[in-house]
């Protein structure tokens, strides 16, 4: 696969471990015209799993940086959303009960 004149190897490497997304799939999206982390996240689900992009965010940003020739710090990040780590509905519901005095 050649994108922007660059020969792309290691296409089967898993980039997003939560959603099993390969480097090849990410690059295919870039080839299809998706230009940002936000778009790639929504097309592929990379970054939507339990770790919320902690692993894949930087790896995809690297690909965008290299292919579009922009510095890493200029690659647009996705919004970091709560909660910081997965938390059960039961724990949250109990917290509501305590807050409202209905525990």
């Amino acid at each position, binding site marked *: 696969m050649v994108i922007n004149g660059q020969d792309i190897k290691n296409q089967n490497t898993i980039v997003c471990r939560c959603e099993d997304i390969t480097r090849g799939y990410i690059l295919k999206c870039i080839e299809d015209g998706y230009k940002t982390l936000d778009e790639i996240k*929504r097309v592929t689900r990379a970054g939507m799993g339990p770790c919320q992009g902690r692993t894949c965010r930087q790896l995809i940003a690297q690909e965008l940086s290299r292919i579009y020739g922009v510095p890493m710090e200029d690659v647009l990040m996705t919004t970091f959303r709560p909660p910081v780590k997965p938390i059960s509905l039961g724990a949250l519901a109990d917290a509501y009960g305590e807050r409202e005095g209905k525990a």
Partner: protein
Amino acid sequence: MKKSYDVVIIGGGIVGCAIAFELAQRGRRDVLVIEKGYLTSGATGRCGAGIRQQWGSVLNATLASESTHIFENLEEYTGYNGSCGLNQGGYLLVAYTEKEWQQFHKNLEVQHSLGIDAYAVDLDGAKEIVPHINTEGMYGATFCAKDGHADPFHCTFAYAKGAQKLGVDIETYTTVTGLKVENGRIHMVKTDKGDITAKLVLNCSGGHAAKMAALINEELPIFPERHQILISEPVAHIMNPMVMSFHRHFYVQQTPHGSVIMGIGDPTEPVSFNTRSSWQYLEENAHIVTQTLPAFRNLRVVRQWAGLYDMSPDRNPIINEAKDALGFITVAGFSGHGFMVAPRTAILVANHLTGQEDNLDIKRFSADRYRTGELLLEPSVV
């Protein structure tokens, strides 16, 4: 991006992209879609993406039902090589008050008159459809197996890519900074990437529609309202249908991917452009939903976010041409159900703009209805 287009559409959500596609299908292909972020970055990409035909008014049931038929073949319809993720697991609408239960029976009459295959079930019937549901406090439920859920990103990308294939231009990360009227007609859209002249400008900017219309001094009763939503980690499939309550203001759905998506409405939410998440919402949603679906207590939330409903006074869309800026047409005010009616609404708008007949009367959606009192009343909204 050229300097001049026949039609400029403001807003790259499903409404704007679907209208672009339908216009192009009808031969109006000199069209530009402007989006200030990426496609779906506004309300479309933040919505629950439910598709429900169980409405209480003929108009909404018709729009939703005819839109569902398009969602069923959207890939073929637009020539998209991905999947739009339609999952028709049905909607189970549960009634928690006697009045609501009576309304559901009236709604069923409307739905049956349009050939929508929905039916009422008692509490045992509800448990057959969702075995782990807690029916305490419930009067009954209605179910339509053809209701469901689709992927809002892929549906929008399908319309956008289909439109582009027919010659439509799309400019993302482009912000409208002004509008110019000449001799009572819309003439120009000013953006941070340059000015564009246009014969027609469609305002499909959702919660921002009133702000956009204000640029030509048109007052529209469309206001933004934050709605919050959350999603869990993927788990084994235990629930096919969307479970929804108007009385308790919640909806819950397990996606084909296994994650469970849910949201609640807050009747006290103020008018604002706020799209931040709150921890209060997270706890309240968990409390409300685990009462009806206790099995979800062990489910872990991985992400929460918020988006804007584009509310109108009667909670139905406004399709309106500005009186002092002919050619400036707003298509907004969908009040939380824009995604599911977008396919049919886009056809209605495109038919109107290309002089083709349509069995729905577009004038009914005009903002004039708030003066004449001919409101589009809908008894069943969250």
